[in-house]
């Protein structure tokens, strides 16, 4: 781990699939690193890119957005909207000099407790490696690479 600080991850989960997937992980006592906080929305498509930028501004190291698998959205097409928006946002982050992998989009169904655990642990490790978001150092890292 680069930094001694604890990673701060916000996970936006949809009510129907991914939030239930997180519940399934908990119910199965699958152990996860305790550095993420879940915010529940009815659909992943409620989360707009601006809100994610605001989340970074408030100190998040990484933002996970999780929805239902393609074709399974409780609201028919919500997750496709989410997918497009996150793609655009990642381009924007790149422009801003923010590592685009700080935003991660995942499809996690209600029965995929194991997947939820894997995604969260992986993401936390990855963000721990990147460290807190600091625009000046982030840009230097980018220029150096």
């Amino acid at each position, binding site marked *: 781990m680069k930094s001694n600080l604890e990673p*701060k991850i916000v996970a936006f989960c949809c009510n129907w699939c991914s939030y*239930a997937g997180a519940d399934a992980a908990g119910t199965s006592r699958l152990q996860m690193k*305790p*550095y993420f906080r879940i915010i529940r929305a009815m659909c992943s498509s*409620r989360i707009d890119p601006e809100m994610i930028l605001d989340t970074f501004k408030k100190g998040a190291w990484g933002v996970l957005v999780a929805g239902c698998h393609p*074709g399974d959205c409780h609201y*028919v097409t919500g997750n496709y909207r989410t997918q497009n928006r996150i793609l655009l946002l990642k381009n924007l982050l790149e422009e801003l000099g923010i590592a685009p992998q700080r935003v991660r989009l995942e499809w996690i169904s*209600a*029965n995929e407790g194991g997947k939820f655990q894997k995604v969260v642990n992986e993401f936390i490790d990855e963000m721990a490696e990147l460290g807190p978001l600091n625009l000046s150092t982030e840009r230097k890292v980018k220029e150096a690479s």
Partner: protein
Amino acid sequence: MKIGVYVCHCGGNISEVVDIKKVTSFAEKQGDVAIVRDNAHMCSDVGRNLVLEDIKEHNLDRIVVAACSPQFHGKTFMDIVEKAGLSPYVFEMANIREQCSWPHFDEPDLATRKARDLVNVSIAKVKLDESLERKTMPIGKRVLVIGAGIAGIQAALDLGDAGFEVHLVEKEPTIGGKMAQLSRTFPTEDCAACILSPKMADVPSNPNITLYTNSQVEKISGFLGNFEVTIHKKPTYVNENCVACGICEEKCPVKVPNEFEQGLTKRRAIYVPFEFAVPYRYLIDEDICIYLKDGKCGNCQKVCPHDAVDFTQKPEKIEIKVDTIIVATGYDIFDATEKKVYGFGTNKNVITSLEMERMIVHEAEGRATREIGKRIAFIQCVGSRDEQIGNEYCSRICCMYATKLSQLLKRGDPKKDVYVFYTDLRAFGKGFEEYYKRAQRTGVKFVRGRVAEVNEDSKTGKVILKVEDTLARQIIESEFDLVVLSVGMTPGAGTKQAADVLRMTRSPGGFLQEAHPKFKPVDTLNDGVFICGCAQGPKDIPDTVAQASAAAARAIRLMNKGVYAVEPITAVVDEDLCSGCATCVSVCPYDAVKTELKDDKRVAKVNEILCQGCGSCSAACPSGASQQHWFMNNQLRAMVGAALGEEEE
């Protein structure tokens, strides 16, 4: 503003990991928090009354409960808050069980800190909650039942008898499902056909049930109280004049394996599925009929004395509207060819248990279809409890049907040697253990051990099994005339299709997921959609029938009052901010947003009945005019701030 915060121990589930004191003392320090309490079981009567009385006594106007997932008890507490005279939406739940004590039990300090943060998130949100009211909507008495096996039949009859309008859709040409194929039912050994056929006959005679056989539900749109259903009805090419005299069948030149008889007998291209089929009428298999393929033959039409054969029939699309839906799409038996080691499909003396069911029926009716032999072995758990093939679950019925089939064989001919090779013998139901003992007394030999090898003696055609008897601790290598694979259940193709059409959640294993495993076993997360029978998971006939009646009762509970409560978490537009760009109109999956002219200005308007509350339009709105009740922009941002430990402004 006066907020009450309640922290639940969940009988140790939470308090054994999370330091409750630290959470409550944190909550006490937050602005506007008037009362903080903790309780062993907040969902109990005592816990609920705490909330109820505090609201009244201390004039609380916001409530936070830190306990389990809101998907478990969210509604419980919302109802209490409403009962106390507040809007049920001035309530928040912090999930400190599924999200703290359970997934972080190795790190109690960090779990406690997370619990504190989650309480903080809920406090931040509850402060911004509006006093939304539940609205009521009218609802009718129409039900769609998908699948007409014993589950669908039972649900349809219960609903029909109660005076509800039932539309029963079955993909096969007859109702009855898998139960119709069984010989007898365990543990009472009733003849399956004899107890099922009267129920089947009740379906067409019930004036409230409309039956669609040979039909599939193609599309469902809408929502509780307003489902629009498209049914695709395949042609049978035989009209209602048919009296099933059978003359046509004799003249039909095409023969194929009879699927109802598991291929043990043949049927023609024009056929009745079986002798107690409902409707009892011939149909033509369009995949194999010569006339339908190339216009030749037509024998059946020529000989029919009732003018019943009609080759001009076309597929029909039927549109209906219903208020609730029951999914009873059942199961398929495990495809034993997937389990290659047992040689099913290559070794003719290895058969499935369903074939054995039919063979026993044929033998009992004096029309034996194949030799059973003297030495018979049952192999248990084929396609169940098998991680190699990806089915971890137990199919629940195989132990008992093998117990049944083996003793029927042994009792029919005591000279037969009948073995059952099992993993664990699970005789859990009423009368099951007694039935198992009876099989042992009859002389069936139960051997604990998973069969390792199945080989064929190339000369005699007999099957040689190699298995370790794990109780006697010896390797058995023995020859059998016939090996019966006790195949398990898999979610049927119909269940997969229904899940797709209704966008339903499925459990591990692929069966349909219930809303709550204990207390909402036949509800689903889709309002107004219920499940029963093996579509929900493997089960036997009594459990299926009980669940079907339960699903009917749950549907009746929703419809009987004539109105139901709607969640007010719809989109809402600030007309002053709205520029009328209609971005929201284009993203709405429900056509719930339209633009209209108001004081010479084009603004978006939300239809609160059509809006299902996804919030996609709110995220798309470029001017922040479109928002979602209970998930307003300022609420989501306040939650994020609290989650990241931001101080109050």
